[in-house]
């Protein structure tokens, strides 16, 4: 076990863990940041998506020992008050059904919109294709990303 210093949601956090521990379980078990969800563990569903230096990343496949000097943002740190335009759009459209996949969807969408301010429908569908929603809220996700893009411009 080693000590690792992580920068998460603007705060410095020191954790003791095995080098191969995925960031996902550091967040959930050690730091009690349970907003990031476990869905598949093999980078196939997107439930565990966080931002690493602004890039949407699957935390289930990101080992804690690879996270030197990077800035990690989780759903808890996306905004201070739940008022990030993507979160607001999610609420406006009432996207979630069971809700389990939605933190991952929001993190994927917010990283995507930071890069692409005015996405087409096809670009949205492509960007969100990697995130599974078992409840199939896909059409509302597409709509909410569009609404969020408008809010951000």
């Amino acid at each position, binding site marked *: *076990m080693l000590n690792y210093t992580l920068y998460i949601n603007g705060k410095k956090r020191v954790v003791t*863990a*095995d080098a*191969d*521990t*995925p960031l996902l*379980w550091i967040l*959930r*078990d*050690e730091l*009690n*940041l*349970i*907003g*990031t*969800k*476990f*869905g*598949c*563990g*093999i980078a*196939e*569903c997107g*439930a565990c998506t966080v931002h690493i230096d602004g890039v949407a990343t699957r935390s289930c496949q990101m080992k804690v020992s690879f996270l030197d000097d990077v800035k990690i943002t*989780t*759903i*808890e740190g996306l905004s201070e008050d*739940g008022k990030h335009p993507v*979160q607001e759009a*999610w*609420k406006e459209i*009432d996207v*979630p*059904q*069971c*809700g*389990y*996949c*939605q*933190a991952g969807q*929001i993190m994927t969408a917010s990283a995507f919109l930071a890069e692409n301010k005015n996405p087409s429908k096809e670009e949205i*569908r*492509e960007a*969100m*294709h*990697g*995130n*599974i*929603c*078992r*409840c*199939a*809220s*896909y*059409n*509302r*996700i*597409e709509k909410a990303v569009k609404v969020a893009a408008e809010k951000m411009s």
Partner: protein
Amino acid sequence: MESQNKYNFSRRNFLKTSVLASGGMLIGFNLLTACKPEAVMPVDIKSLNFNDFNAFIKISDEGYVTLFSPNPEIGQGVKTSMPMIIAEELDVAWSKVNVVQATLDTKNFQRQLAGGSQSISFGWDALRQTGATAKQMLVNAAAIKWNVDASTCKASKGIITNANGDQLGYGDVVKEAALLEVPENVKLKEAKDFTIIGQEIVNVDIDKIITGKPLFGLDYKAADMLYATVLRPPAFGQVLDSFDATEAKKVKGVIDVITIGGKVRDYINSGKNDWTFVMSETDKVVVVAKNTWAAIKGKKALSATWKQDSKLESTEDHDTILTKILEGNKFDVRREDGNIKKAFINADKVIEKTYHSPFLPHNCMEPMNFYANVSSEKVHLVGPVQTPEYAAKVVADMLNVDLDRVSVEMTRMGGGFGRRLYGDFVYEAAEISSAIKKPVKLISTREDDMTMGVYRPAIKYRIKAAIKDGKITGYHLKEAAINGNMYGLIPNFFPAGCIPNFKVETSNYKSNITTGAWRAPYTNFLAFAEQSFFDELALELNIDALQLRLDLLQNVKNTTDKRIEYSGKRMEDTIKLVKEKGNWGKVEKGVFQGFSAYYSHNTHVAEIAEIVLKEGFPIVKKVTVAVDCGVVINPTGARNQVEGGVIDGIGHAMYADFSFNKGKPKYKNFNTYRLIRMQETPKVAVHFVENNLSPTGLGEPGLPPAGGAVANAINIALGKRIYSQPFINEL
């Protein structure tokens, strides 16, 4: 408003009120009077002798209303729509209503489950009566204060007003109201006066969901809680032979490696288990660890040998067995009208087709997990399960403790689809905690979740129709399924009553692969089979496919047959609505339409799917849906439900493959098991038939017709009939 009073209330045990020590008024009521009403709430009600009630409303001195909702939320929006109904009749502003998931201290408490899309239909009358009764009591209390006749007072949005214009808030009179007698025969609102029902109201948990607050079972934590993973036999039909935990114990964070299974075995041998108990009798190896990752790594480091206990079955075996069943004559007759034999002898033409569906895992987004803390005094269980009362009973029996000592706390569920009706993971968690004498959270990886069992069973249908003088005169449906057969109501769904000579027969084969309910059980595939078959018949008869259904429905519209479950008239109206909204028969070149309609879970649904071809491959572009589900409580939630069901139906029909090789599931995770994703998702337009009838289920009925509508469109586009799921293997 028509109100189908299926569930009669005995006024005496229907509702009770009391003043709360902490201020405000508590109203206890029986949400579902079909149940044995014994449950305890986490508020101070012991002294109030409130054990007769299973749902509670608290009205505070400030006029805020808290509803303790006993119904588990699995994504069907009941946690929002049920309080909407109460708030409507109670006449409070929606912004003053707060909903809290109730904890269940269970004892003979039934129907606290979310399954079968029934929550709303069961609750409708009870919820309205409760809201209206509480409102009347508040009004009566205000009238006494003012010394006026209650009939001269009105209440709206939490404010009571008398003829002089004096006003009192609900909070001002709660203490007095709580002491009044419960009035009888309160007046319910007219549908036209609804101000909350029918409004677009967002999910009550929305803020928590979008900010990542703990809600789900996997998010639950308790002091000193440990984590456990379970190594189960890799194949159905195997049991544990031996294991070596040396390497697993070397993993940092692993605390212990134990075996469980004995308690489940004893329970099965006691004969108390009923058909809903789906677990094998094997021992399992459990890794107990300080955190999830150590538990997962520890399990990987285990080595175990397994021995064969019963047959190791493969998909090919099932195929042969089910086909043999269909060809044999050992069936249970489930419905029979007229003389089917004669109809086939006299027929001009006989058409017979066979349809096949594979096993399917549920794949809830949140893998199965549960918290258990078994101590000598009590058993505390927390997590996502759709049948808390049943789980509590089994755990009490298994651990040989008094049911009074078992409490179940329900969390929000990351999907259900029928999987969480089965408590196998609850029993495992309880057995682990009882062995290690510590609080523990059982965790499943996706691989565990997909291979641990309880699948939709594989099924084959053979349908035969007799045609005479351009009419369908005979209809014979045979079902050969794994482990069980269609439930009792299904033989009376459409097309029962439409065809004079009619027979439904079922038979099954008992497999050691565990199976259970999967979103819209049986109808999820039966609708595909029948609706594809009718499409074929329409072509044969040279009648428009949609018109054929309307023609058939004329025969059932004035039926006196009480067994018929659906309404010919409502189905007709639903089909006509989809015909109009979906522009049936009027599409541009290159777009191909398919039609399907089905009744299930008390709801009538009709769908038109539109596909286009991309390099010869069909892409579903749009689905138009018409739904008759009675009064629409929350249009946003209702549309979401239907839309999710339709896309789910298409996704599984198109892509979902699952099979077994010598008892071993072929797929384990989403890299090989394909679920529908964003780019494959069609647009879905949902239209509701407007009426004032009691609300019916929405979590499931959108799904069954979807596969058939797509298959029928594919046939138009490619001239290819599909008889098996997944379609992708046929294209």
